């Protein structure tokens, strides 16, 4: 085959595949700028005068902002907590490995294998008894625990890449462990910590099992808000599209930024 011809073939195939996969998101994006009538018109309207009325309508719903704020607060706080708990553990295991380190890491991974439905009943009852059903605190606790193993694993792999000699030089100078971590390790590993945090935020933001089951209105994040569009009387496609676009846009950008690290985090380093 002629090589320039095959180049064109690859170009068409590659972009064709990408656009087919991306189409539902693109269509949602377009529909968000249509009127409700245009949104359900057949044949579908490709050319239309874009309108922002859906976005105004979504923002005017007094509760939209509260869902968005719930999503932000829950994701950010749960991520911060997970990193706070994980940094010391990852530090110790990366720089002072013992015979048990390998086993501990694998055991942590195995806790991630528990299917959420398997423990839905006790979590629901515990939440009810502690009075944290439908509270941000409740979801923050669950999400912190849910992501802790992945966060520890990712930090562990990033810390392993920091040359131990630098930390040791600091130790000679009499730096205490706490200073060693905060003043030497954290600045060096900052890019790794940032991508770990991004991955954790993505996972919290998109989590839709616990949020649908353990929150109703007060603490419900955007995943639950979007689900409320599923009722037949709530079928406003243009508004659904606008709300969806707002809900996924920031996380899509985060995801694009952290795609490389994502592979590592989600496969626990088994694929490099």
């Amino acid at each position, binding site marked *: 085959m002629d090589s320039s011809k095959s180049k064109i073939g690859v170009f068409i195939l590659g972009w064709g595949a990408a656009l087919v*996969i991306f189409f*539902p*998101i693109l269509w949602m994006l377009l529909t968000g700028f249509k009127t409700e009538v245009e949104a359900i018109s057949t*044949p579908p309207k490709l050319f239309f005068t874009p309108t922002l009325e859906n976005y105004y309508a979504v923002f005017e719903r007094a509760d939209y902002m509260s869902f968005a704020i719930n999503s932000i607060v829950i994701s950010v706080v749960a991520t911060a907590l997970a990193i706070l708990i994980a940094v*010391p553990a990852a530090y110790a295991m990366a720089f002072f490995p013992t015979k048990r380190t390998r086993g501990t890491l694998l055991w942590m991974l195995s806790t991630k294998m528990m299917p959420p439905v*398997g423990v839905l009943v006790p979590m629901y009852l515990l939440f009810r008894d502690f009075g944290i059903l439908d509270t941000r605190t409740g979801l923050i606790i669950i999400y912190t625990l849910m992501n802790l193993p992945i966060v*520890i694993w990712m930090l562990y792999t990033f810390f*392993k890449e920091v040359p131990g000699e630098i930390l040791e030089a600091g130790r000679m100078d009499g730096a205490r462990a706490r200073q060693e971590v905060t003043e030497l390790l954290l600045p060096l590993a900052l890019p790794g910590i940032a991508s770990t945090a991004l991955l954790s935020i993505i996972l919290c933001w998109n989590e839709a099992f616990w949020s649908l089951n353990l929150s109703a209105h007060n603490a419900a994040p955007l*995943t639950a808000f979007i689900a409320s569009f599923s009722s037949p009387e709530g079928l406003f496609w243009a508004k659904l599209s606008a709300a969806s676009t707002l809900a996924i846009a920031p996380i899509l950008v985060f995801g694009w930024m952290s795609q490389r690290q994502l*592979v590592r985090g989600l496969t626990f380093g088994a694929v490099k």
Partner: protein
Amino acid sequence: MSASIATGAVKSAPTVRRSGQKVRTLPFVAPAVLILLVWMIVPLAMTLYFSAMRYNLLNPVVEFAGIGNYQYLLEDPSLWTSMWNTLVLVGSVLVITVVAGTLLAVLFDQDFPGRGVARLFAIAPFFVMPTVSALIWKNLLMHPINGIFGWFSRLFGFQPVDWFAEYPMTAVIMIVSWQWIPFALLILLTAIQSLDNEQKEAARMDGAGPISMFFFIILPHLGRAISVVVMIETIFLLTVFAEIFVTTSGGPGLATTNLAFLIYVRALLEYDVGGASAGGVIAIILANIVAFFVVRTVARNLEA
């Protein structure tokens, strides 16, 4: 990166630091371990305990049921239907995502103008929250009257398909596959790109065409990555929930009720704590069979 190199690194890892200073690591690791231990044991123990109790939230009397809940559940045809549905869903999505992911990974490994941007488009669905993808597919795409798919089939003179009434499971499989193809693509592309260029070059010098190249060089190299994709996806796919929750609610009938949805119905709609817990135990056993292989694969690659 072969397994033997990894184990070699484990053995030669320095255990004593040159500074000779002993550092007590327990206080650093203990909080994380304790928290995870509680998180694992308490709910698990409670699930096991409730699964042996006759306990309905509407009925204050709680009594010991022994294996009664399991017996009841195992005799209930809806358990077997939902197990079968779980199997069909997991199996179909695995086949679709691995095949499509492999082909796409080979495609995106080629150089073409705008490849980086095209790749970003192709992995985008993975970052869309499940409730959004399910609703967009259900309405904007699959709606028989106003959806794009319906318009397409009318364009070519076919009757539009009412996906969620006629082929509900196929519809759910399509949505979930769309969400997971990017994951397979990401992992497999990473694996392909770690393939030695010299090896590819040598094969090409020996006159290997693109097809034999794929089957004899690329596919064998992808073996491990594919097994990782299969295992990780299985863990998540066993408990697909939101997609079913917002599209079909498990129906029509039990057509799209998987194990996760059945447990949800038992626990939060029928308040049957005992029965739902017994279902939970079954789900945990299923997941652990898979988890065993995941942990083993990761362990082989772990450099301590």
